[in-house]
């Protein structure tokens, strides 16, 4: 009987970035689940649109100013995220800490503006199915925003402790990756909530 060959993996890295890492795939899985949920909710919105002659029924569309302001904040927040993600991949702790804090500031601004958005939707969920769909869609996006915010706060706090290891930088990179998803999903939701009632 021949001796077994040996594949020696002892010097392979103990963590990895991007699509090589297990966590990246897990994050992607969560994104697909949430993305499907948003897509179905938008589907419900358009399905209900087909049931009534006027859209929105007997009310004005949501006011644009906070919606537009928030979209600008969200798009701008990509910049600090890209910055700290690159720093994370070079394992530059100082820049990562600063970048995470700036990104958190953007998220806080967004959540504050979101509160004002809710006050200017010009509809209520109990009035009609249109209101129900608008509030639920906004509610879903806000829930996902707040959970990601809390998640980022915990990660940021962790980066200021002495528990930082290589894998944490990979986690930071995934955090930015997830934030891009938050930004990208908002854009079609913005179009649906604010522009569709004006167009159709």
């Amino acid at each position, binding site marked *: 009987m021949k001796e077994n060959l040996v594949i020696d993996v*002892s010097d*392979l*890295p103990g963590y990895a970035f991007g699509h090589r890492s297990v966590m990246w795939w*897990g994050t992607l899985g969560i994104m697909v689940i949430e993305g499907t*949920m948003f897509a179905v909710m938008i589907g419900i919105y358009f399905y*209900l649109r087909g*049931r009534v002659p006027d859209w929105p029924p007997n009310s004005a569309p949501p006011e644009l100013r906070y919606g537009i302001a928030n979209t600008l904040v969200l798009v701008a927040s990509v910049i600090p995220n890209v910055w700290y993600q690159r720093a994370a991949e070079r394992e530059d702790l100082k820049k990562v800490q600063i970048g995470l804090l700036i990104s958190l500031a953007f998220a806080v601004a967004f959540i504050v503006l979101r509160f004002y958005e809710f006050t200017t939707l010009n509809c209520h969920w109990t009035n009609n*199915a249109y209101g129900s769909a608008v509030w*639920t869609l906004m509610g879903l996006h806000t829930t996902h925003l707040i959970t990601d915010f809390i998640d980022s706060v915990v990660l940021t706090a962790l980066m200021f402790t002495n528990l930082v290891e290589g*894998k944490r930088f990979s986690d930071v990179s995934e955090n930015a990756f997830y934030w891009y998803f938050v930004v990208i999903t908002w854009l079609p939701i913005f179009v649906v909530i604010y522009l569709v009632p004006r167009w159709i």
Partner: protein
Amino acid sequence: MTPTEEATRTADAERDETPNDERERRQLEETWKEPGGFFGWFRCVHHTTIGRRFIITAFIFFLLGGVEAVMIRIQLARPENRFLGPDLYNQIFTMHGSTMMFLFAVPVMEALGVYLVPLMVGTRNIAFPRLNAFGYYVYLFGGIFLYTMFLLNTGPDNGWFNYVPLSGPEYAPGKRSDTWAQMITFTELSALVVAVELIVTIFKLRAPGMSLNRIPLFVWAILVISFMIIFAMPTIALASTCLILDRLITTQFFNPAEGGDVLLWQHLFWFFGHPEVYIIFIPATGIVSSILPVFCRRKVFGYTALVLSLVSTGFIGFGLWLHHMFATNLPKVGQSFFTAASMMIAIPTGVQIFCWIATLWGGRLRFKTPLLFVLGFFLNFIIGGLSGVMVASVSLDQQVHDTFFVVAHLHYVLIGGAVFPLFAGFYYWFPKFTGRMLSEGLGRWVFALFMIGFNLTFFPMHQLGLKGMPRRVYTYLPEMGWGGLNLLSSIGGLIIAVSVLLFVIDVFRSLRAGELAGDNPWEADTLEWATSSPPPAYNFARLPTVAGRAALWDRREDQPIIKGVRSDLREMLVTNVLDAEPDHKTVLPSPTIWPFLSAVAVTGLFIGSIFTPWAVPVGAIPVAIALVGWFWPNRQEHEEELSAERDGRPPQEVEA
């Protein structure tokens, strides 16, 4: 070399170990061992521990659903029976359907995946072990919640698809409908997190050499259904949320008076509900494709065709939901499209069946119990498939819609198509799970009684349906002439019950006194058989590599083994997606109580929120605390991670 010689040689190689190996084995034992004691039970994270609990829990729900089925059959055995009243009957058939679909069929398939996939791909644990434990507890609590509510006379009573407006605020006061909707939230959350873990395990943790075109067919099946779960389950979770919102805070989704729509519920339900059928059926075909080659002593015929069939079934499964709604006022063009799609899905299923027949044709068959159940599957499933092609046609469907014909069809597809292969799988993998064989003699009785009982129960229902007996009626008048066939059907139901009882008795007998199985009693070809039965907590003492589709039969004499994965840490090898080449290593988290506590917190939030909307913001606080506790590393974990990272090169130096 024949498979038999190969298996013997493997066993020899395993015994042939040096003192060094022995030391390493003890080290692995120490590193991976699951916590003991009462509190330890809640901290376990290994996929075999959680997978075993998952399978047992799902089987208990199968027994409960079965008891409900027997009660239904007793009630319908003769006209104007007074065994169950109409109200209890409604709850019982709803509980039966919901239990079988949401608490048994999908979870048991995922559970098999949780137990078997990491072994089949040759790794030491599932990708996110804590999430896996969390998924199990959420499922368990969802099931306990449903049955507690049922015992409090608040069991759901609108059928397993809970149509509005019957389930809406106007026609379903009380909490019964909310019980159903929230049970959905529990089970879907569990199914979704498990699906993500399984996908990542299959993509990133395969043994070197197991490129995409060598993944075992059962693993392919689990991969396909995990993707289907990810795309189908959010729909039902959202639909049930909308229903709860309508009932709790007066949204208007399903209220036609305020611009809502009742058919919206049916669209959302069946956009999930039809893929659900394939989520149950596809793993069953994976079981068949795993068992057939072993009992035919040859490799499976048409591996590529089988994989493509699984994948295309997964896609087409999403294009069929409207055929559940042919009796609504949908446009004719839409109906024709869905008729075509419903017939088209017979093509990949047909391809699979012909591949299996070809495998049987060229094989040397060993008629053990697993193969008997597979052969039973062929017969029963083909009958179910044929009645499926019949109801895919709009005109025929409108004739038999909501009659016992549909009940017969769905049971032929689900019991014939999924439970028969599942029992084949139980007999096949039981030795791996427990180290002991089930009785071959009793197994034949279980099979024969199940086969006879099943056909006796459900075949007459075709006829009852054609004679006009609607489903879900709690009784009928003697003048209808349905009494004889119903009695026959009820007798069949009791025979199935006897068969399942025999199986349970055999399980308990075998656990105490069953014949010892050894590593690979069936001389099978996949990697789960390359370790002891039951597997140790580290799965494999030497991480395996793979040289062909039938990992053990194709093993070369000098098949490489992996060195350099630490045995003093829970370290695992991560490989790349396409070719499974070694990429990096990762240290998996250790046992912890936090997934259990998180599941408790989530349960509090879910149950509270059917009573008051304030349960959501208030309940979110303990959930957040539990999740932070879960993610926050402790000093020891940090030291271990650092020590593992110091071994390797920095990832930036390695080309992606």
